[in-house]
């Protein structure tokens, strides 16, 4: 009986129907089971997402170390200081640079690989899908630590290979050189998260009916034209979402950066998250949780803007998909 009520309410909501003339309380009561089942998630989200987020906004107006009762309200002083902190802006821009370089590489490579693996005639598809996905489920910190050995200029396998292939005359200190540190991390990041982006693309490719390809092949279309004129237009709405998800992911690289370089050498790979962490917890003075919260809020607005863009993109993608279905 109850489940039947919930089912009806769910169907009504899905269909976009709103019971006319009923008060909000009655409508909530009618859908009480839906709300009840959503409650645990809501409580957890309130405790572990909403509360810390809101508190960090409050902290951003304090001069506070984070662990004493001595909190001083300083208004916008933290924000003013941030605006004049060149290390903040360097970290901010570095995060955006990281995104601008890593995201296109990851999205394009993953798309190409998804096209290859989407071919049903390719027998090893499942094996490669698994292989590419393995780094995704490995801890970022573990990957970071292992990569410090892989890229070590002394006896690291990458350098050994470069030297043996005579591509380098002397070992390259990938993580110790300010010109290469960030981009080495970007490379590892692409490798680590490549699998998830590829899976997104594979899911998107499922919407392209096989019959269309077959019909086009009968009409003499080559592989390039198949993808240019059929695949690309049909998966484009998904591309928007995939790109935006990847962009937000590229701004969350703390684990890799902290374990591989700690933001060094001399801040050369310090992205925003590491900057925030360094001010909130790092060594060398009293922690500044208030200041770090202000920096986090500043940066959070950027991520929020991108997330809103993602929501907009998602809506557009759904509209486009609905049109495709209707057509």
């Amino acid at each position, binding site marked *: 009986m109850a489940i039947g009520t919930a089912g009806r309410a769910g169907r009504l909501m899905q269909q976009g129907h709103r019971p006319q003339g009923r008060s909000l309380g009655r409508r909530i009561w009618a859908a009480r089971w839906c709300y009840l089942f959503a409650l645990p998630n809501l409580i957890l989200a309130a405790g572990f997402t909403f509360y810390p987020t809101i508190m960090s906004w409050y902290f951003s107006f304090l001069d506070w*170390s*984070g*662990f*004493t*009762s001595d909190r001083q309200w300083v208004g916008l002083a933290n924000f003013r200081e941030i605006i004049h*902190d060149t*290390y903040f802006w360097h970290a901010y821009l570095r995060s955006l640079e990281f995104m601008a370089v890593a995201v296109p590489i990851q999205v394009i490579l993953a798309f190409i690989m998804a096209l290859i693996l989407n071919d049903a005639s390719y027998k090893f598809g499942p094996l490669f899908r698994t292989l590419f996905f393995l780094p995704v489920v490995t801890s970022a910190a573990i990957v970071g630590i292992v990569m*410090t050995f892989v890229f*070590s*200029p*002394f*006896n690291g396998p990458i350098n050994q290979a470069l030297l043996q292939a005579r591509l380098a005359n002397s*070992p390259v*200190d*990938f*993580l*110790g*050189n*300010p010109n290469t*540190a960030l981009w080495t991390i970007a490379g590892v990041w692409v490798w680590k998260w490549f699998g998830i982006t590829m899976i997104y693309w594979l899911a998107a490719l499922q919407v392209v009916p096989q019959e269309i390809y077959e019909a086009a092949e009968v009409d003499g279309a080559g592989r390039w034209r198949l993808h240019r004129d059929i695949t690309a237009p049909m998966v484009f709405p998904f591309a928007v979402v995939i790109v935006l998800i990847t962009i937000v992911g590229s701004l969350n690289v703390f684990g890799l950066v902290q374990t*591989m*370089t*700690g933001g*060094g*050498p*001399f*801040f*050369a790979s310090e992205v925003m998250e590491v900057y925030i962490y*360094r*001010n909130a*917890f*790092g*060594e*060398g*003075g*009293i*922690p*500044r949780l208030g200041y770090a919260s202000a920096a986090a809020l500043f940066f959070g607005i950027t991520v929020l803007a991108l997330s809103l863009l993602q929501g907009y993109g998602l809506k557009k993608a759904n509209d486009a998909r609905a049109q495709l279905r209707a057509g």
Partner: protein
Amino acid sequence: MTSAHRFSRRTVLRAAGGLGAAAAFGARLNATSAQDSTSGITIPQPSTTLPTDDVTFRWIDSGDLKSFFYKALFAKYHEAHGNITIKYDPLPWDEINRIVPLGVQNGNAHDVFAMPPDVPAATAVAEGWVAALDDIMPNFTEWKARFPIGSFTDGVTDFGGKTYTFPVTSDKRSSTVLFYNPAILQKVGVDPSAKPLTWTEFREAAQKITKQGKGQEFGLLLGGGKASSQFPAIIGNLSRMIHPAGGSSGAATYMIDWKTGDYIFTSDAVIGAIELLLAMKSDGSIVPGAASLGSADARARFPQGHAGMIFSGPWDIVNYQTNSPDFKFALASQPVPDSGTPAPLTFEQTGSNLNWVYAKSKYHAITADLFSYIGSVDGQVAIMAATKGNLQSLFPEAAKQAQETVQMDPLAKTALDLFNSQIRLGPMMSVRVPDYSAVQFGIKKLNPDFGDVIQGLFSGQLKDPKKAMQDLQDRSNKNLDDAIKAAQAKGAKVTRDDWIYPNWDPTKDYGEADYKALT
């Protein structure tokens, strides 16, 4: 404190004299003896009424040498009291910096913890983080009286007339002892045990090792990357032997010439030490990857045998012996200046390996019982036994007993001789200025700090050492002045002049009489 004596090249040589023998003898030590460390521990009858239900007691500190003792002690304690399990978390300092404040904030901190480096002890006391030992230890007065005079200091262990912690061991030690690989150094005819290497000899030795190593062996292994860079300690201690300056405990006192109260970042000594390191990098004498290796990573790699030398502290003696029993190494003085008499390093008697009791812990009785044993002659002998003398007791009786009954590690003895000849007790702001913690707590993180700046110079992102150090000096001064002003505004009685100790003699321990002479 031991009576001070003149620190000269002769004393350095004398201290270094035993190193050759130590190197040979050190190789005989192996992991087995470290694993026997439980044998010296006998858990006495409880000094207080212990819980009878099943209890998990939590203890966090920085591990290293003392972990050999604590692991053994906690295992024995569990044997004696089956219902009490002690969960020991030996973690790096940056983790302690993060975990302990969060634990206190959440009300679930470890029952006993090491104080995070960024938290002034006075603040922890004022905030009610920690319990006074007066209130939890049975027979507190009798227990406290066991410690030698000078073990408890206002502003360090005691606050507001109560005692909150106690020094487990002596902290007269350095993190820049020259550890070397005798097999590699012999190939190039260098023996730092015969006499300390001068800066020039050190550089030349590293060049020779690198040249003969043909890409497989390098002169110096260095951890200059990440947050835990060795740069501040190395540059700091190399330069302190030319231009005496304060120890490294506490950001405000860092690298300050106590005679003038000024930072020494722009001194010829510091610039010279930086240039030495840059020259060695330019020579190719430093193991590749130094800029991306953390201190712990570098130290862990030394036994692989790809470097002739590394700077480290006595904690790595047992570490190498235990984790790399086949690795043969020896110790010597850090490189000394090319000319003149090397000045001593200074240390602050902040009490080595201090443990603090979480005020809200439900198991103060267990803490009291453990502290009672650790602060006894038997407990102190057991510490020296577990670490084969690498940790030195403050109790003269325990030290004497350990030397007679415990197999002392010759390398530990070498390190001890080195520290006795090269390190003196320096002035301590927390002793002189009761309100010092108000200043210390107001000192903001320098961005970039000393370690960052040297890292920038080393990686080539900063080009001019003098300009970079002048900038650091200016920012350090402003940071300290601002912190003093903020403390004054809150009513603290302190001025910048308090940083000047006109009667400081770097060659002598700075004692109680010296503080009295200031007033």
